[in-house]
C-alpha cells in the first residue's frame, strides 16, 4: 500500500514536471496532524481544508510565481512522533513554514525546533492557552508561533457566559478527561467561573476509554448541578450524554468546541441534541466565501451525510494556508524571519472562511481569533447549527467588543 502510494506519487511528480516543463521550484509547507487515531476527524478535516486552499492558490498562479506544495506528515497525536516529523520537515524537506497541530501536547513538544530554526508555525486547531506563548520576550526576542484556532481561555469564558451569564445558572458541574487537554481546560473553566463569582459544585475526572460515567454524573447530580460543563473529546462526551439519560437526569451540556465532533454526535445520538459549544465556523453558507468553501469541500471529499467531519478544523486549516501565502507574497521571499515579520504586519486583508483577517497578528499578538469571532453552536438533528439567530446573521463578526 505504502509503496503503491509512493510509486503513484513519484509518477504524479514526474508527470507534473514533464507537463509544466520549466516549473519553478515549489514552496514547501509542512502539514503536521493526526490523520489516523482518535483525533483523526479533526486532523483529516484540517488537511483537506488546507489542500483545498493550496489547490486554489496554485490554480491562480501560486505565490511569487511558484506553486505551493504541502508536505503532509501524520504525527499520530503522539508527542514523540510529532518531534520526529518536525525533524524530517525541517532537515530533510526544508519547509518554509509548517501548519497544523490538533493536539496541544504535540504542538508544545514540536515547536521548539521551529523556533530555533526560525521557521514560522501556524497552529490551526490546537487550543491550549500556552500554545502560542511558549517563546515570549525577553528570552526569545521573536516568537515564530502563530495560531488561527480559538484559544481555551476564550472558549472557557464563552462556555461560562452561556451557562452563568445567559442562563443564570449558579450550580455548575465540570466534567473533564484526565489528559492535558481536559485538565488545562478544567483550570480555565474554574478561573472563568471564579470571575463570575461561581464555584463549581462538582469537578470530576474520567479517563479516555472509560465505559461507565455513573459515579461522576451521580456526584454532579447529588450536588444539585444545573448544567454540566465539559472538556473532553468525542467518544467520552458521548458516554456522558448516554450516562445522563441512564440516570434520568437532563441538564444542559455545555463544553469546549469538541462537542461538535462527529463521533460525539453519532455515538450519543438523540442525547447529543441541545449540546452547546463555542465554534469559529459552522457549516452553513451564510457568506459567499463560506458557500464556495463548503461546496468545494463536499465536491472534493464527499463526507457522509454531507457533514464535514470537523468543520472548524477544515475552515481553520483552509484559512491558515491563505495567511501563510499572503505573508510569503508580502515578504517577497521564503526567508523565515522575513515571513514572520510579514505575518506580524499583513498589509492586505485576507478573505478567509472564518472571518476577514485584517492585520490578524502583530509582534506581540500571535492569536488570529479574538473573542468577538467565535459563536455558540448547538447540536440539532445531528448537525451543528447556530444557537443564536443574531449570530447567524452576523457571520463575519468584525466589530471587536
Amino acid at each position, binding site marked *: 500500500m505504502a509503496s503503491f502510494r509512493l510509486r503513484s506519487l513519484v509518477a504524479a511528480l514526474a508527470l507534473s514536471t514533464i507537463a509544466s516543463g520549466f516549473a519553478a521550484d515549489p514552496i514547501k509547507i509542512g502539514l503536521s496532524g493526526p490523520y489516523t487515531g482518535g483525533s483523526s476527524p479533526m486532523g483529516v478535516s484540517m488537511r483537506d481544508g488546507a489542500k483545498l486552499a493550496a489547490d486554489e492558490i496554485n490554480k491562480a498562479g501560486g505565490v511569487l510565481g511558484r506553486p505551493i506544495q504541502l508536505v503532509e506528515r501524520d504525527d499520530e497525536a503522539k508527542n514523540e512522533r510529532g518531534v520526529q516529523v518536525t525533524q524530517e520537515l525541517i532537515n530533510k524537506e526544508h519547509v518554509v513554514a509548517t501548519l497544523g497541530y490538533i493536539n496541544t501536547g504535540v504542538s508544545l513538544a514540536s515547536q521548539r525546533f521551529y523556533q530555533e530554526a526560525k521557521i514560522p508555525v501556524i497552529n490551526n486547531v490546537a487550543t491550549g492557552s500556552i500554545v502560542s506563548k511558549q517563546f515570549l520576550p525577553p528570552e526569545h526576542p521573536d516568537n515564530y508561533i502563530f495560531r488561527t484556532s480559538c484559544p481555551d481561555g476564550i472558549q472557557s469564558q464563552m462556555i461560562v457566559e452561556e451557562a452563568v451569564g445567559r442562563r443564570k445558572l449558579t450550580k455548575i458541574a465540570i466534567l473533564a478527561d484526565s489528559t492535558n487537554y481536559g485538565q488545562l481546560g478544567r483550570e480555565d473553566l474554574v478561573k472563568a467561573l471564579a470571575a463570575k463569582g461561581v464555584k463549581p459544585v462538582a469537578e470530576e475526572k474520567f479517563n479516555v476509554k472509560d465505559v*461507565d460515567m455513573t459515579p461522576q454524573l451521580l456526584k454532579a447530580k447529588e450536588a444539585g448541578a444545573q448544567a454540566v460543563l465539559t472538556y473532553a473529546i468525542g467518544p467520552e462526551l458521548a458516554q456522558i450524554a448516554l450516562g445522563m439519560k441512564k440516570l434520568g437526569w437532563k441538564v444542559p451540556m455545555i463544553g469546549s468546541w469538541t462537542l461538535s465532533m462527529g463521533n460525539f454526535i453519532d455515538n450519543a445520538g438523540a442525547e447529543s441534541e441541545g449540546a452547546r459549544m463555542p465554534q469559529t465556523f459552522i457549516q452553513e453558507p451564510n457568506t459567499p466565501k463560506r458557500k464556495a468553501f463548503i461546496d468545494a469541500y463536499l465536491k472534493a471529499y464527499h463526507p457522509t451525510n454531507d457533514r464535514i467531519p470537523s468543520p472548524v478544523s477544515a475552515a481553520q486549516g483552509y484559512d491558515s494556508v491563505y495567511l501563510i501565502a499572503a505573508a510569503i507574497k508580502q515578504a517577497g521571499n521564503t526567508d523565515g524571519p522575513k515571513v514572520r515579520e510579514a505575518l506580524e504586519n499583513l498589509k492586505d486583508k485576507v478573505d478567509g472562511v472564518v472571518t476577514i483577517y485584517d492585520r490578524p497578528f502583530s509582534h506581540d499578538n500571535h492569536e488570529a481569533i479574538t473573542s468577538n469571532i467565535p459563536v455558540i453552536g448547538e447540536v440539532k438533528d445531528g448537525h451543528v447549527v447556530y444557537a443564536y439567530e443574531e449570530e447567524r446573521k452576523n457571520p463575519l463578526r468584525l466589530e471587536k467588543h
Partner: protein
Amino acid sequence: MAILLQLLLSGVALGMIYAVIAFGYQSTFATSGTLNFGQGEALMLGAMVGLSMAGNVAGGPYINYWAMIPIVLIFGALQGAVVERIGVRPAIKTKSEFGWIMSTIALGIIFRNVAENVWGRDDMPFPSPLPTDPLHIFGASVLPMELLVVVGAIVMMVGVEIFNRRSIYGKAVVATSTDRDAAGLMGINTGLVITFSYALSSATAAFAGVLIAPITLTGASMGAVLGLKAFAVAIIGGLNSGLGVIVGGILLGVAETTTGFYISTGYKDVPGLILLLLVLSVKPAGLFGKSVIKKV
C-alpha cells in the same frame, strides 16, 4: 440509599463486563497453562464483525442482533484457533516459557491494525437490541442492556460448565486441565483440546464483545483497556475458578464506582489495583484459585 444502590448496580454491571472477558483467560490457562493476551482484541473483532452484520455500517443492517450472535461465535472460535495454531502451538512444542506471551501480544496488535484498516479508527455506535430507556429499581436506574450483559455472562458460564461436566468432549478438556501428560497417555488428543480451548476462549470474548458493544461504543481500540482490566479480574478471582471471575469482576466494578463517588473520580482505579496487589501477595492463586505446586 438510592445512591448506594445505583453505585452497586452500576458496579455489578461493569464488573460483569470484566468477568465475561476474564472468563476467556481461564479456559486457555486451564488446558495449556498459557493465556491469550490478545483477548481484548478478540473481543473487539467480535464486536466489529457483529456491527458489520447488525449495525448500520457498510449498507447494513443485514440481519438482526440475535441472529448475528451464532455467526459471531463461529467467527470468534475460528479466530481463536488461528491464534493457537500460529502463536501458541510452536511455543508449547518447544517448551518455551515466554514465546506465547510475545506471540499472542503480537497477534493482538496485528488484529487491531487490521481492524483499523477495515473499519477505520473511529468509535461507532452499536444499535441496541433492547430499549435504551432505563428501568427504575427502588430509585436506581439500570439499562436493559446491562441486565442482558449480566444474564448473558451467567448463561455462558453455566453453559460451559455443563459442557465440561456432561459431554465426553468436555471431560477431555477437564482431563487435559488436570494433567496434560496423563490425558495424552489415555488417548486424548491434547493438542486438539488446547486448540479447542483457544477457540472457546475467543468465542466467549467475541460474544462478550457484541454483548457489551451497545453500552460501550465500538471501535478498534475498545479492547485494550477492557482486556487489561479483565486480566486483573482473572488474577484477583483466580485463573482456575469460574466463580472467582464473577466475584473478582463485581469486586473491581463496585470498587471503581464507589471510590469514584465517595472518594474521588481521579482515584477510582486505585482500590482495584491495591486489591490486585494484596491478592498477589497474600493468595497468589487468586481469591478462589487452587494453588498448584509446580514440580520442576
